[in-house]
């Protein structure tokens, strides 16, 4: 993965299955332990990567981020049906909470020490230390409770703006901590969230509440020497696409970005917007890895490879979101199989 991001010669299309909970599953580790223990989280990802022969960078991340970090509570996924940590108590329940809430110290803020633990393990093996930036709407929704935030976007927009301002301050502190610990050049930022989806909010709302903060935090991280960013605009964000391009333009296309949109956004559209500068991380339909056969997955990957390989700035075969934790291992192998068979450069 690092090779494609730095423009090195490759022998085949790199494969990154965005496998988190899946790696715990195949290592026989409880999913809750995977998310609660940074060492286990790293080990599972490393071993799964070795087993399948894929090219991912181990990292910590979860979709409900924002609640625990600002003083709320999360539950770890120990029960049947759970797939990732979930919010048990939102730190913002009343309008006055927005004023009261303080920007947390990343060293003790919710999951950030877990990000740090995984990053330390990765750094020790020469891999990037990954921390999270952006996804302001997702952070805010998780802290406020999504429906409350969505209603306030119209009824009390000043509260949403105010809290997102605090999230920006917190993300700058997170960036500082990681850059100070490892050096900017040894870091990679990850940005991804689903509440930004256009199934939930309009592109206008995305622009109004988020884009200026996105530009600020991306500039901040890049100026601190962070060379690469993994962008995961989760689910259907087709209508937000011009704003993501705007963020890149505002940063002068600095750094190397990998775009991993949901399967709703065509690869061609991504190439058109980012292809001159950035890597496209393909977007095979994620639930298919759980519900379809090996042969069907190979064909989905083949189609993705044939389209993605046309990107002048590089391509990585990926699912359009996290690999389902319950995916049969043979379907993860299907990605590597397809990359070898249809994505060889020799």
């Amino acid at each position, binding site marked *: 993965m690092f090779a494609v991001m730095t423009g090195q010669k490759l022998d085949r299309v790199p494969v990154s299955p965005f496998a988190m909970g899946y790696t715990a599953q195949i290592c026989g580790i409880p999913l809750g332990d995977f998310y609660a223990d940074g060492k286990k989280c790293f080990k599972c990802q490393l071993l799964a990567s070795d087993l399948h022969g894929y090219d991912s960078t181990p990292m910590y991340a979860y979709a409900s981020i924002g609640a625990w970090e600002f003083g709320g509570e999360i539950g770890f996924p120990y029960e049947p049906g759970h797939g990732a940590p979930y919010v048990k108590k939102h730190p913002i329940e009343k309008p006055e909470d927005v004023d009261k809430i303080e920007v947390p110290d990343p060293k003790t803020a919710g999951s950030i020490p877990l990000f740090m633990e995984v990053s330390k393990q990765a750094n020790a093996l020469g891999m990037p230390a990954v921390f999270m930036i952006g996804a302001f709407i997702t952070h805010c929704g998780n802290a406020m409770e999504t429906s409350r935030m969505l*209603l306030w976007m119209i009824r009390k927009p000043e509260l949403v703006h105010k809290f997102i301002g605090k999230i920006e301050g917190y993300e700058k502190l997170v960036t500082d901590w990681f850059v100070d610990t490892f050096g900017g050049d040894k870091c990679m930022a990850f940005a991804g969230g689903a509440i930004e989806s*256009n199934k939930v909010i309009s592109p206008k709302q995305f622009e109004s509440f988020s884009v200026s903060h996105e530009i600020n935090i991306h500039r901040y991280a890049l100026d601190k020497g962070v060379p690469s960013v993994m962008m995961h605009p989760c689910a259907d964000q087709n209508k937000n696409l011009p704003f993501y391009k705007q963020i890149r333009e505002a940063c002068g296309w600095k750094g190397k970005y990998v775009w991993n949109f949901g399967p709703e956004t065509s690869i061609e559209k991504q190439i058109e917007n980012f292809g001159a500068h950035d890597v496209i991380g393909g977007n095979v339909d994620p*639930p298919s890895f*759980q*519900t379809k056969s090996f042969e069907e997955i190979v064909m989905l990957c083949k189609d993705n490879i044939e389209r993605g390989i046309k990107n002048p700035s590089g391509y990585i075969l990926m699912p359009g979101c996290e690999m*389902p934790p319950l995916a049969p291992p043979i379907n993860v192998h299907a990605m590597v199989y397809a990359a070898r068979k249809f994505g060889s450069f020799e």
Partner: protein
Amino acid sequence: MKQEIFDGLAEAVVSGDTEKAEKFAKEVISNGLDAYEAIMDGCSKGMGIVSQRYEAGEMYVPEILCSAEAMNVAIEILKPHIKADPAVSPKKVVLGVTKGDVHEIGKNLVKLLMEAAGFKVIDLGRDVSTETFVETVKREDADICAMSALMTTSMIFMPETIKQVKKVKPDIITMVGGGPLSPDVAENYGADGYAKDAATAVKIAKKLVGDI
């Protein structure tokens, strides 16, 4: 005048204007108009328009939540004035998010639009076990059992739930929806209906109920 008030009520719901919703609902009462008719031809009509606009990508969830707020303001005023139950009892829907899953925005939209369309919804909330779905379907003698899941780890409970609710009520209509679902998966799970979003769920439910 009657039509003007009902249209005003519908417009207040569409625009999420709680003050106007309150004003028109009070006008329904002060003018001696039928409260049930006002709910159906005003509030529900408005939510029908909201549903269409959401499906067309012209409205988004924040606006829908405001519409729901306006509708609830009007209904609170109108409800005590409903003279008699409508002749036909509404179809009952048991609705919930499957076990292990706490994502309920989609389910809440389904509830909102189904109620606006005249269904009686028994909302079981989130993280609902198969046993709870089955017991509720049986107790309520429900017409539809609708399940939502946002995660691949929680959608796996759907086939067993479908099997079990069909055991206690063979003619129950089962519907599934949520991010990781697709028509193929729904069919494999044995569901009678699949909806990609809340607006479609109402359409499919109406169609399936009509098919009984």
